[in-house]
């Protein structure tokens, strides 16, 4: 190691300190909500909770996890996320791979169609009318199918396939492999980091989707988690409460906090596992060319 100058030391130390402050700013708000969700009413109302719960109680969680509506919406969100991510990823791989083959005729036109759709949209109302005409209103499919093509991710996927050496494909072709075979047994395994990345993006998007549900769904039993969560945040008493005694002694803020935690934890748990992949994936997309 080289000897560091005084200036470099100062720089380094202040860098660590500043980064720690930024990290705290990212983490503390969430910890604060979590702490409130585990604290008893008096402390919450007095504003005494920072990041450590006081008067520890899980009552808010009993309310949230005992609510039928929470589980209904949780189930809806899991369904949308799992099915949507699977379908969306598959479509993205298919389109990205097909368009990455240089010999494909009509490729320029099709690419233009994808890119134009990314830059220009007919708007909320015409899209709503199409969804309605097709009969998807008040169906969970309305939250999956219309968004099933994401041009941006398709382009990233295409680029990835494009950069896989042609020799891979050619040798498989000589062995008589079909395009489907080549895709599934050669290309997809090679593109796993990229696929992990886009599927994480899709999963997060489906999990966090609020607006589509707001316009396409008005049946309470079909509400996804985010819509339910929003209701709770605005008005904690609408969590259909089975246990009034519990509710009486629990601050609304604790109930809100518990709902936020319960609705966010699952997606936050997925992300560290995929982080290694997506950082690589995003970077590949960024540094190319």
């Amino acid at each position, binding site marked *: 190691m080289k000897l560091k100058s005084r200036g470099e030391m100062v720089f380094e130390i202040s860098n660590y300190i500043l980064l720690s402050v930024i990290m705290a700013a*990212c983490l503390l708000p969430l910890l*604060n909500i979590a702490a409130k969700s585990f604290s008893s009413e008096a402390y919450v109302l007095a504003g005494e909770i920072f990041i450590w719960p006081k008067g520890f109680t899980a009552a808010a969680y009993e309310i949230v996890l005992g609510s039928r509506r929470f589980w209904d919406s949780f189930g809806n969100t899991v369904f949308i996320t799992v099915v949507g991510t699977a379908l969306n990823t598959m*479509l993205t791989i298919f389109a990205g*791979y097909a368009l990455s*083959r240089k010999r*494909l005729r009509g490729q320029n036109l099709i690419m233009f169609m994808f890119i134009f759709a990314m830059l*220009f949209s007919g708007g909320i109302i015409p899209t709503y009318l199409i969804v309605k005409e097709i009969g998807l209103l008040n169906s969970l499919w309305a939250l999956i199918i219309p968004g099933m093509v994401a041009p941006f991710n*398709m382009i990233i996927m295409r680029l990835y396939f494009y950069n896989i050496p042609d020799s891979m494909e050619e040798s498989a*072709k000589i062995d008589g492999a079909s395009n489907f075979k080549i895709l599934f047994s050669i290309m997809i395994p090679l593109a796993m980091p990229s696929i992990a990345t886009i599927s994480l993006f899709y999963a997060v998007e489906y999990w966090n989707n609020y607006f589509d549900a707001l316009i396409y769904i008005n049946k309470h039993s079909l509400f996804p988690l985010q819509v339910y969560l929003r209701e709770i945040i605005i008005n904690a008493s609408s969590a259909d409460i089975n246990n009034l005694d519990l509710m009486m002694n629990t601050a609304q803020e604790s109930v809100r906090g518990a709902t936020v935690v319960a609705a966010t934890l699952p997606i936050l748990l997925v992300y560290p596992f995929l982080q290694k992949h997506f950082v690589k994936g995003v970077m590949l997309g*960024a540094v190319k060319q």
Partner: protein
Amino acid sequence: MKANASIAEPIKTKKTSKAWKELLMDYQLYLMLLPGLAVLIIFKYFPIYGALIAFKDYNLLDGVMGSKWVGLKHFQSLFSSDKFYSVFINTLLINLYKLVFQLPIPIILALMINEVRNTVFKRFSQSITYMPHFLSWVVVSAIFANLLSPTNGIVNVFIGYLGIDSIMFMTDERFFRAVLVASSAFRESGWSSIIYLAAIMAVDSQLYEAARMDGASKLRQIWHITLPGIRSVIVFIIMLRLGAALANDLEQVLMFYSPMVYNVGDVLGTYVYRIGLGQMKYSFSTAVNLFQSLIGLALVVIANTVSKKFGERGLW
């Protein structure tokens, strides 16, 4: 087996069978494209056609085709409405603030993370700063409501110590836009820094060696080597931002605003949503939306042209 069979065949048939085979393989490629294209056409291109209702008096019974043409009537009423102008200006201002304040933060963050030598701390700081990107706007708005709560939010408790009266940040016109900018900085800064970080790592390390020989300080190295080195990525990001500028804050604003701050917070997206689906003024709100889409498209095209003129890479 296969090879033997083709050797036995005359050359001509071999050629045609190969061509046929290639066509067959490509037919599989088209099959792969089919579902994606179908969704694209139905849910992206049909709505673009459906946007014709901006020039019609849409009614449910007659549909897009059957409704009566009214020319530019809806655009005229849009351009003569004060409400529209205030919404348009809000949209521009909020996006301008976001561009100005949010562009440097991820760059600075990436520069800082890049300087960290301790790999554990480096990984940790990356993970933590990306994390807010995975929170929905619903959750982020809950977090901010919690932090900024006038009764027991941390921010107001803190400024209380300083002897300042508590402020209703979320419902005060003076602070609402700042809340929007701060919340999107909170959610996206770490995430946006990934790309800059990747670009910084691609900068030639010999340049730093040479600079250090010449006695350049860390800050000078950043200013003279790193920043010019990632300039093209910065331009690229600005361009992407501009393209999405008018359309991307709908959900955020929807979560944060309330009638108290409509004056400063209502943006094109929320306006279209309220007027369109709330009051069922389909044609009028589609006209607003179309205007928004056109301005957005124009911004990207202009940015792309300018960027290419200055020798940077374009979006296409």
